[in-house]
């Protein structure tokens, strides 16, 4: 019986080669009596640059040298080669580790005599946070994403719509999912797009709103692919959306709560996460459009002669007062380059002035039909979205 897909076999072979070549270099340094040193681009905020042309957050030119003999870096040097060897062995054994697995596989105790002769214990790493950071270093060092090393993770993204794809060795029709949905695979680069009959893609931050729109037949009526990230998007959902945009040239709209958290989800889809900018080149979707919910949808905006979608008393009952940390977050966002369009600044300033948040559910509360047949189509029609 054939258990794993033929796609995975090819991926494994390539990953093993890259790892072997890269670490051979370190061995050669050691045998030459040199201080072995891993040189990798710095994953710091100051070395994260916004590429205006490509509209992507990318790693800058700064590198860091992690050398064996540097007391402050010695442990990380050890952790990096340890992590590489674990992944190498998993690939050899036809496994699909998760980052949690990798944490466990590498975790062990070094017992050593301290300066005063007492035997002390130190773990190779104590928390997954530590081993996760090493995985990111390694991805940058060997210039491969974790999915290319067949490291799997949990996956929340779902999709429905008029489209057929090939995944593994199967063909799946995303318009035939009944009341349910298709759960995207953790390695979306291995998906093949077969045919599609859709005019745009709508990403909905919240799973429950996705369920409502799906159930009411939204994607059928408006010829859309409907996707939910179920909150902060995972890597696979981001890569899947990017491929829809890049390869199928579909317009992509996103609908989130009207708060800095929602805007940050938009930002992660569009630009990438600041701490993981090295992935942006593959995971970010620079052509993404923010459809709503905008503060001007709630309050209107006299400067662009826009009327609000909510009445006075709806506002009173639906609005949530912004918290201290929302305000702080919004003030951070407004400083990011990709939020420095006049429209985005205006919207964030409305938020800062009113100190008011709104959830998408407030719109379905006004009426599912309002959201589905008024709000979304009208905003797309009049191009009331932000780049």
């Amino acid at each position, binding site marked *: 019986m054939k258990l794993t897909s033929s796609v995975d076999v090819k991926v494994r072979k390539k990953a093993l080669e890259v790892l072997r070549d890269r670490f051979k270099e370190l061995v050669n340094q*050691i045998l030459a009596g040199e201080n072995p040193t891993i040189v990798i681009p710095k994953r710091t905020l100051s070395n994260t640059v916004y590429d205006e042309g490509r509209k992507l957050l990318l790693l800058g030119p700064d590198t860091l040298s992690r050398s*064996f003999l540097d007391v402050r870096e*010695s442990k990380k040097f*050890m952790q990096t080669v340890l992590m590489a060897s674990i992944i190498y062995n998993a690939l050899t054994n036809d496994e699909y580790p998760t980052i949690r697995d990798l944490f466990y596989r590498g975790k*062990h105790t*070094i017992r050593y*005599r301290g300066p005063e002769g007492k035997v002390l214990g130190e773990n190779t790493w104590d928390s997954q946070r530590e081993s996760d950071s090493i995985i990111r270093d390694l991805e940058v060092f060997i210039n491969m994403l974790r999915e290319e090393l067949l490291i799997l993770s949990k996956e929340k993204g779902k999709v429905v719509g008029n489209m057929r794809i090939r995944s593994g060795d199967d063909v799946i029709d995303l318009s035939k999912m009944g009341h349910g949905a298709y759960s995207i695979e953790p390695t979306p680069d291995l998906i093949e797009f077969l045919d599609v009959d859709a005019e745009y893609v709508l990403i909905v931050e919240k799973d429950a709103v996705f369920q409502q729109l799906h159930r009411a037949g939204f994607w059928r009526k408006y010829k859309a692919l409907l996707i939910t990230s179920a909150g902060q998007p995972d890597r696979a959902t981001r890569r899947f959306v990017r491929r829809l945009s890049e390869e199928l040239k579909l317009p992509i709209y996103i609908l989130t709560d009207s708060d800095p958290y929602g805007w940050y989800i938009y930002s992660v889809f569009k630009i990438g996460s600041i701490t993981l900018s090295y992935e942006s080149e593959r995971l970010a979707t620079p052509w993404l459009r923010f459809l709503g919910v905008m503060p001007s949808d709630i309050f209107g905006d006299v400067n662009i002669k826009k009327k609000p979608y909510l009445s006075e008393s709806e506002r009173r009952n639906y609005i949530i007062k912004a918290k201290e940390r929302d305000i702080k977050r919004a003030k951070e966002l407004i400083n990011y380059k990709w939020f420095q369009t006049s429209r985005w600044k205006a919207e964030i300033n409305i938020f800062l002035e009113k100190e008011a948040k709104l959830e998408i559910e407030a719109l379905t509360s006004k009426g599912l039909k309002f959201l589905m047949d008024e709000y979304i189509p009208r905003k797309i029609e009049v191009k009331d979205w932000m780049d």
Partner: protein
Amino acid sequence: MSVQQLERFRSLSPAEFFYRNKEIAGFSNPARALYQSIRELVENALDATDSYGILPVIKVSIDSGVIPDKPEVYLISVEDNGIGIPPDNIPQAFAQLLYSSKYVLRQTRGMFGIGVKMAVLYSQITTGKPVEVLSSTINSSRIYMFRLSIDIKSNKPVIHHKASFKKSNDWHGTIVKLFIEGDWNRAKSKVYEYFKRTAIIAPYATIILKDPTDNVVYFKRSTTLMPRPPKEVKPHPHGVDIELLKMLISNTTTTTLKEFLMEEFQGIGEVTSKTIIELLKLDPNKDPKGLSNDEIELLAKVLKEFNNFKPPRPDSLSYLGEEIIKIGLESILKPEFVAANTRKPGVYEGHAFIVEVGLAYGGNIPPSEEPLLLRFANKIPLLYDERSDVSWKVVNQNIDWSLYEVEKPAPLAVLVHICSTKIPYKGVGKESIADVPEIENEIEKGVREVARELKSYIVRKRKEREEVEKAVGIIKYIPDIAKSLSSIVNDVQYNSLSNELFKLVLKKFKNVKFKSVDDVVVSVE
């Protein structure tokens, strides 16, 4: 109505005043009175020895059950090997308030002339028994014995019994026996703490204490070094006020202003005397007793404000010196490090003073958030009201210990000893010292000095450790690195990688003595 009917004026003897107000001298309840009586007697005993260069041997015994049906009555007995008291002075020294040998400019533990008399007074109020005193001076061939009480109305001694015996040996010193209503259970912990601190400040003293449960504690002297005995001195001009000037003028035997200034003050020589008189625009030969009130006021002002006197002489002060402080801290606290700093003499309101600071760190000292503060004034341990004391303020508020590399909780004890002919206590109970800026300043300088020594010690110890720590911090990772790399790159052996890495470390840290990775790494699993 006439005022005479309304008001009857009369005066009060000092004995009656303190009899009515015994709590202001620390005799507020039986526990406190017992503690206070013991320390007054012990301090007199120490004054009678170390102030005269005698290595003290003090024997203290506290007995209960000495009077039938009165379990609350204790007998306190304190014996010293001091200079003894001349028999003529004994009655007043023990049974007349405000009578003392200590009203001179010379540092002693007692200063008020109240302490031991309050014990006698409290004893007679609560038990009706007289105090018994035996004493023999150094060259005397006899021992004198008195049983005394105080006539409160007149503040005069009452002699109940008087005797003398021929000495069979060369013993000299004083023995005092006192009955008192007390509460040992509540006084116990303070009494023990008092003796422990006394042993720290006077490591040259041997003290034997027997308590009511027949528990005996023996503090053996750990040095024969002793502080220089204090000498009586003249007042320093900076400490002069109008009243003091008037008293000096009325007592002086000099007949000219110039001589008066040179004779009656310390720190004024011929040149300075002239300068002062010029400032006053007076005749240097004028009889000081002929100065008018306005001239006295002016003289007081000039003496206070003139800046070129020699600093006050410490001769009147009996400070311990850094050596004795270190010995005391070491022998009782058993620390890992000690430092001490005896400051130069200072002056406040014309009273010379010397601050001494000691510091002990590590070893047997238990770590705590606040340093253990050992306060002493003229060699007296201060136990109560710690938080209102100027030393507490300096040690806990003025000083940021983290600047001296001390991480709290720290095993830290700070000793502050203030010597002065006049300690600015906040109350007659002699427990806490007021915030006199001059003294606070010297304490702070002293604490900072010993804290700097502590910092050097901590920093040096730390540096020695760092080199080794660094090497260990790298070597411990060699097995994992060698194993990982050899599992990815199949054509290289674990052993050769491990050896090469170890060589790299030895090349960098030349003083490190390891022979192989196994000297550091015990196991990896």
